[in-house]
């Protein structure tokens, strides 16, 4: 690497500052940075300027860390306006005559407020709204007693910000806008109307379609404005926010090409017509457009920082979603929000609630989402913004737009209205809301224990949703709101993350972490994301960066035991195994000295394999015609069966064939927790299907389907879900049921507790799976079909590619050395020593 090159940045606004931070994060000593800022203070958050009148200080708004910048060798010159650029000599000259030589120059001078040519605009009391100094001037002026009303000319983004500033100063505020609505660049008419309504409720008077023709004064000071129709508004302070103009005079004087309406022309790498000069932010003109929002400016900052440090990240600025808070009102726009470039017959999916001031609209043209607007409620905004440009009938983005457009507060249903304390909550057991509240106050904060100690919900169960809602309400009130966050790195529930991964079509951990998370992740979120990616048929589970998020067992495709060795479990579908396979397994166990045990799921578990032995053992298992049993994954484990009509005198259906069909259909299916199943050939239920996540019990005419049972620590009898199904019907319901569970359950939540927490219980589950009440049945089946089509035995996939075997080595620098666990012999088999230290 040669000597460091000199980088000079003209302008220390939000974009200039962000650029320097982005550069420092990548700079490897190849640049020394000098910043020339015209203002007296370092970069601050211009977007939040009005908060200075609402308690914030300039320190609160200051961007970046001046000390860290100094530490990184950045030379920040304030009060240092640049006079001209000498491209030939590669230097800039400041107003006070200093010269700064550059190897590369970045122009980030931003923009000037546009003052429309209206007679009287020079009167005292007229201001622009751009800098801290502007705000201070407005404040000083407005302190005078005679200043009681103020006028903002321009009802766009900045105008509303300026109105907020005046309002915070205690001045009766008017906003006038020439167009027929507020924020004409971003909002459609209904959205603007909703915003206008809310803004007026806050005490700001708005006047749209008001073309100011004259600014009146008393000879010195402003007194009001007049429009083309002669209407007048009086005010003693006036702020222009009628748009911005790029501050491109330096570039113009230096002979750089300008855009049709100003702005220094840049390409996708932020280069101007001089390759040694770049421009970013509001001073730049990209694709004939000058962008007046901060997000595109930040995108340019990132692109240029990458460009100058040797990587490429070409600029893409189309459809940057924008979220704003104007006078406390949330406003979001995405895509072509005003339908400007769309055909006339465009479809709108919208939700309007004038009472709460909510308006949400999505546009669809030719089956393609083109853009939309949200006012007053930004729930699910990111999801809406992410489907712009996607085809609605695309199998991977099939969404119910209606569901996305309706705000969460409405979609959640009943709302939070309160019934009196003596109202009955559970009529079966005569439990009042007061009884439940007092239990919650005593510290019972989970649904299960709450049911147990109040008896509410133990009768017909119809009150469970009310019970859950009351619990949530009370917990919120007590400030111990159940936090649905997965862990400290993701503030989403598993269900939300599943939806996000599905909508955004994420394929890598880094993508998910960078887009939705923070930090380095952990042993909770990594496997949870791994499971979600795998459930969405993401290919071999250790490919790409997925290897780094798989739990130990999934990573080694075997189950780690207490002494660090592994167990091996081949799949035995339905528990049916040939004598030859039994002999082969026995031979393998003898050859590798493995402890052998029959499992509860009608399989054979081989214990005591060391990491480096796993590929050798599995090759032998595959050679015997068997495959991975996925015992190491949160996935379908086993489908037990009895012998059914094949042998049994009582059997009424072929349980073994059905069990094999079910097991082979869902093998390898990753889910929130393990899945167990069983098929019984008659009502004697020898396969114990009612203690499984899903089970089938034969009837004379078909199958009874049971769901959400469990053995283990908290046994639960499965519920009878549907009766007398044909084979194919049973499979169809199972496809839907399993995918619905996978989508909506929390991390490590078995089907039984998932069911317990399901609002509406069995009836609701039936309505989703059988009656398709949510309209997602086809989607669920398609997701399952994709899983089935992409299934591969993970051990076969591993052994077929030698590079996938690299991590089955115990010590990378000594492949032939192995640790030696301490074994003892018990009942003729090798087991770990009870108090063993490996050496």
């Amino acid at each position, binding site marked *: 690497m040669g000597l460091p090159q000199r980088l000079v940045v003209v302008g220390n606004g939000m974009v200039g500052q962000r650029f320097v931070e982005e550069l420092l994060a990548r700079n490897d000593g190849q640049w020394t940075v000098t910043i020339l800022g015209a203002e007296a203070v370092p970069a601050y958050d211009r977007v939040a300027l009005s908060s200075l009148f609402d308690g914030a200080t300039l320190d609160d708004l200051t961007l970046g860390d001046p000390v860290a910048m100094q530490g990184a060798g950045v030379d920040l010159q304030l009060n240092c306006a640049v006079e001209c650029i000498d491209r030939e000599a590669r230097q800039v000259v400041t107003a006070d005559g200093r010269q700064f030589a550059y190897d590369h120059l970045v122009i980030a001078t931003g923009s000037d407020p546009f003052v429309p040519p209206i007679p009287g605009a020079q009167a005292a009391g007229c201001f622009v709204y751009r800098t801290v100094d502007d705000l201070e001037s407005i404040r000083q002026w407005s302190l005078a007693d005679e200043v009681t009303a103020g006028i903002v000319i321009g009802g766009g983004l900045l105008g509303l910000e300026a109105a907020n500033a005046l309002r915070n100063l205690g001045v009766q505020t008017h906003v006038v806008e020439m167009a027929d609505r507020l924020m004409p660049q971003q909002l459609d008419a209904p959205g603007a109307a909703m915003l206008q309504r809310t803004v007026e409720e806050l005490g700001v008077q708005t006047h749209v379609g008001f073309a100011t023709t004259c600014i009146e004064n008393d000879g010195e000071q402003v007194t009001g404005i007049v429009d083309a129709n002669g209407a007048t508004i009086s005010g003693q302070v006036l702020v222009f926010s009628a748009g911005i103009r790029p501050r491109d005079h330096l570039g113009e004087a230096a002979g750089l090409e300008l855009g049709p309406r100003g702005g220094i022309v840049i390409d996708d790498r932020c280069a101007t017509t001089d390759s040694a000069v770049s421009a970013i932010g509001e001073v730049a003109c990209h694709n004939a457009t000058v962008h007046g929002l901060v997000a595109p400016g930040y995108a340019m900052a990132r692109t240029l920082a990458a460009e100058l440090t040797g990587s490429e990240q070409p600029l893409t600025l189309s459809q940057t979603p924008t979220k704003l808070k104007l006078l406390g009102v949330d406003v979001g726009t995405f895509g072509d929000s005003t339908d400007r470039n769309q055909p006339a017959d465009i479809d709108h999916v919208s939700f309007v609630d004038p009472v709460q001031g909510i308006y949400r609209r999505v546009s669809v043209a030719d089956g393609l989402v083109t853009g939309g607007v949200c006012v007053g409620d930004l729930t699910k905004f990111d999801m809406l913004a992410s489907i712009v440009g996607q085809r609605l009938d695309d199998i991977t983005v099939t969404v119910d737009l209606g569901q996305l457009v309706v705000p969460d507060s409405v979609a959640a249903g009943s709302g939070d209205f309160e019934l009196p304390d003596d109202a009955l909550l559970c009529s079966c057991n005569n439990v009042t809301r007061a009884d439940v509240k007092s239990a919650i106050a005593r510290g019972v904060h989970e649904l299960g224990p709450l049911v147990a100690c109040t008896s509410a919900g133990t009768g017909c169960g119809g009150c469970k949703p009310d019970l859950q809602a009351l619990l949530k309400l009370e917990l919120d009130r007590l400030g111990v709101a159940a936090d649905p966050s997965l862990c400290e790195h993701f503030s989403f529930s598993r269900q939300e993350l599943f939806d996000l991964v599905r909508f955004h079509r994420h394929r890598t951990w880094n993508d998910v972490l960078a887009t939705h998370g923070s930090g380095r992740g952990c042993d909770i979120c990594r496997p949870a994301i791994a499971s979600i990616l795998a459930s969405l048929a993401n290919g071999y589970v250790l490919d790409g960066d997925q290897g780094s998020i798989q739990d130990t067992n999934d990573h080694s495709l075997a189950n780690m035991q207490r002494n660090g060795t592994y167990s091996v479990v081949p799949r035995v579908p339905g528990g049916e195994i040939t004598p030859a396979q039994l002999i082969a397994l026995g031979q393998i166990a003898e050859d590798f000295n493995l402890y052998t045990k029959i499992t509860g799921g009608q399989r054979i578990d081989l214990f005591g394999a060391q990491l480096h032995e796993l590929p050798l053992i599995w090759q032998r298992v595959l050679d015997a015609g068997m495959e991975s049993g996925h015992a190491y994954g949160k996935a379908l484990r086993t489908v037990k069966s009895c012998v059914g009509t094949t042998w049994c005198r009582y059997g009424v259906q072929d349980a073994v064939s059905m069990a094999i069909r079910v097991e082979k259909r869902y093998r390898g299916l990753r889910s929130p927790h393990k899945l167990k199943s069983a098929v019984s050939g008659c009502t004697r239920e020898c396969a114990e299907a009612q203690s499984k996540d899903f089970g089938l019990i034969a009837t004379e005419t078909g199958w009874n389907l049971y769901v959400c049972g469990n053995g283990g620590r908290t046994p639960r009898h499965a519920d009878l879900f549907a009766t007398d199904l044909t084979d194919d019907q049973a499979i169809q319901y199972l496809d839907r049921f399993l995918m619905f569970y996978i989508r909506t359950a929390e991390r490590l939540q078995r089907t039984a507790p998932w069911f317990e927490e399901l609002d509406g219980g069995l009836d609701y589950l039936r309505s989703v799976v059988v009656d398709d009440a949510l309209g997602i049945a086809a989607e669920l089946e398609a997701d399952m079909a994709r899983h089935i089509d992409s299934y591969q035995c993970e051990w076969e996939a591993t052994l077929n590619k030698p590079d996938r075997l690299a991590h089955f080595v115990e010590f990378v*620098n000594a492949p032939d050395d192995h640790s030696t666990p301490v074994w003892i012999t018990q009942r003729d088999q090798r087991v770990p020593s009870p108090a063993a230290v490996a050496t």
Partner: protein
Amino acid sequence: MSLKPWQSVCNVDQLEPDRGVAVLVAGGAKKPLMVALFRLASAGREYAEEWLAVDHVDPIAFAPVMARGLVGSVGSTPVVASPVNKRRYDLRTGLAVDGDLPALRSWPVRIVGSRVEICCSAYALTEDALA
């Protein structure tokens, strides 16, 4: 005894980002030390790539498994979770994150060209020899 303080153990590209490997390092005792070596990926603007090494043997389960644990962060502290009992250890210091529990020893790591080197200080080696 002439032990080199810095021992070259493997190539940089033998480690997947955010995953560990076990290596054998000559120690003061007769048997080599089992060391778990981790390569933490850079993440966004927050985190740079980091190479860290701790004992490979879990101090509670006494099984040689730490290199096979999942890595992550608690606040800004890089951690590894034991695959046997999920207890988490600060990868920089080896101390347990979840309370007053036995700790792992941590070992300095450096990258020299394309090779990874681990340092076994005399103190640590003595301690190992005495153990």
